[in-house]
């Protein structure tokens, strides 16, 4: 029997496969397709201080092996989350991690503080990397000083596992990783989307209402893998890796590069049950390779 469990900053996940924020709703939609309780965890979609309508339609453009989105953190705010959403998901048999977003340090702190009170939420993921909002979001994730500041401020009010999700749109991902570790992050999530753009040549217009948006999918996997590897070499903080994971092989690549767990994002849109197939695929790989504990894969890339 393979041991698929991973302990990340003191939190035990039954397996390393979780789902990425913004691609899995609050998990309800997926209950029609699969047993979400078999997942290692679910990262629910971004929660901000107040209700946000997000950006105007069109918010999506397909690209080569990927897609751009400019949803822009549409959600009904932290109040609504605590009152309406939380009761319905708190007893799912998997870890629910809330993706905390904002435009100001105060907003991040406010939301984190509120989520801190929710007994069944063992961790938050600070989203300082959303490319689709005018203020805040990615700005916090691209300047080391700001990244440390917002992390430290949230650290003061948030007592459970604090994950920080970094933006790949930076010159040095390791500098950012160190910055959030300095701020008190327990876990680093890598990566959010890359800022991109799509154009309709016939209409001579941008496809997205916001002109630019965030690129996700297999197209970005090489970049994500590289960043996981660089950060794994640079800091000792556990990493949750994602970016273009479509199958178990991709997931294993991220773990070899140094991720303790992985998130499945865009792939959920194409196959809603893909995350459980990845769990099964990792198990099969471990059997083939006679690997007893999935943690043996973490950072096991042979580079000599």
């Amino acid at each position, binding site marked *: 029997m393979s041991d698929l469990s991973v302990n990340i900053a003191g939190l035990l996940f039954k397996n390393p496969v979780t789902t990425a924020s913004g*691609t899995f709703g609050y998990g309800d939609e997926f209950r*029609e397709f699969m047993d979400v309780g078999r997942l290692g965890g679910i990262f629910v979609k971004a929660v901000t201080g107040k209700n946000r*309508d*997000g950006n105007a*339609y069109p*918010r999506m453009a*397909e690209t080569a092996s990927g897609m751009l*989105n400019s949803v822009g953190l549409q959600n009904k705010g932290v109040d609504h989350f605590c009152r309406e959403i939380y009761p319905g998901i708190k007893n799912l048999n998997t870890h629910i991690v809330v993706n905390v977003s904002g435009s100001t340090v105060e907003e991040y702190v406010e939301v984190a503080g509120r989520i801190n009170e929710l007994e069944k939420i063992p961790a938050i993921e600070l989203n300082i990397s959303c490319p689709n909002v005018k203020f805040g979001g990615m700005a916090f994730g691209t300047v080391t000083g700001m990244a440390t500041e917002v992390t430290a401020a949230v650290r003061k009010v948030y007592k459970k596992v604090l994950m920080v999700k970094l933006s790949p749109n930076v010159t040095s991902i390791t500098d950012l990783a160190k910055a959030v570790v300095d701020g008190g992050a327990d876990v680093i999530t890598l990566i959010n989307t890359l800022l991109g753009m799509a154009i309709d040549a016939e209409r001579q217009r941008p496809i997205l209402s916001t002109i630019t948006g965030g690129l996700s999918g297999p197209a970005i996997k090489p970049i994500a893998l590289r960043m996981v590897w660089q950060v794994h070499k640079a800091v000792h903080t556990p990493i949750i890796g994602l970016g273009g994971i479509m199958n178990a092989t991709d997931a294993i690549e991220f773990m070899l590069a140094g991720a303790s767990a992985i998130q499945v994002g865009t792939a959920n849109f194409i196959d*809603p049950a893909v995350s459980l197939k990845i769990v099964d695929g990792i198990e099969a790989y471990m059997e083939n390779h006679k690997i007893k504990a999935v943690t043996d894969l973490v950072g096991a890339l042979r580079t000599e």
Partner: protein
Amino acid sequence: MEVKKLVQDLQVVQSICLNKRHFILELLAPEKFPLILPGQFSQALVKDSPSTFLRRPFSIHSVDYGKNTLRLLIQIKGEGTLHLSRLKEGDSLNLIYPLGNSFSLPNTKDVLLVGGGCGVAPLLFMAQFLNQNNIHPAILLGFRTKEEVSEIDEYSKFGKVMITTEDGTEGEKGRVIDHSIFARQRLDFRKIYCCGPDAMMKAVAKIARMHKTDCEVSLENTMACGFGVCLCCVTPTNKGNERVCVEGPVFNINRLTWT
């Protein structure tokens, strides 16, 4: 029968070429269908097409619960639909279905269905459904040209069919909103169901409002997931941005912010 979403490989029973740009895929499900409602759609996985990354949404064109088959009516637009047009008997097609809400049952018998382009797809299913509820709708279909006029016999089973072609080669000349039924002072219909290009639906909605006629439209916003998790397909409504794939694709025009 329970309403439930499936991810399923269906088998191509036949691919019927209607004309250069349109074809029908008849698909056999491996097990009994769940309840499928008119206006609902499916998300099709296009295999072996390097430039088609996401699934492609298509309305349910008709359902045969007896044979356990459903049909999609597809217009060739880009690479994805081109690849689907090459599917042959015996090939399989993976669908997520049934998705979205549906047209509502009218509380009148004076019903008009208006469709243009590939927007006609959900109307055949709706016409059949109305018939089962003893309603015989008028059906107005717009085509580009005579060559593209198709399935009139099918529609005629369920109600009176009127046609426009843009070049006047069959039926009345012009677009659907140019049809003479809209030129009269009083509109003979108390409920309109409409599906087609945005501009057409907006024009029909305008006419409906003018005549204080109830009107439902089926939107075709581009989608990433199709089952409510990505928030890419939203349309502004009186409740804020709502998902076309879950709260829609069918919206009463009163709920939309169209003017």
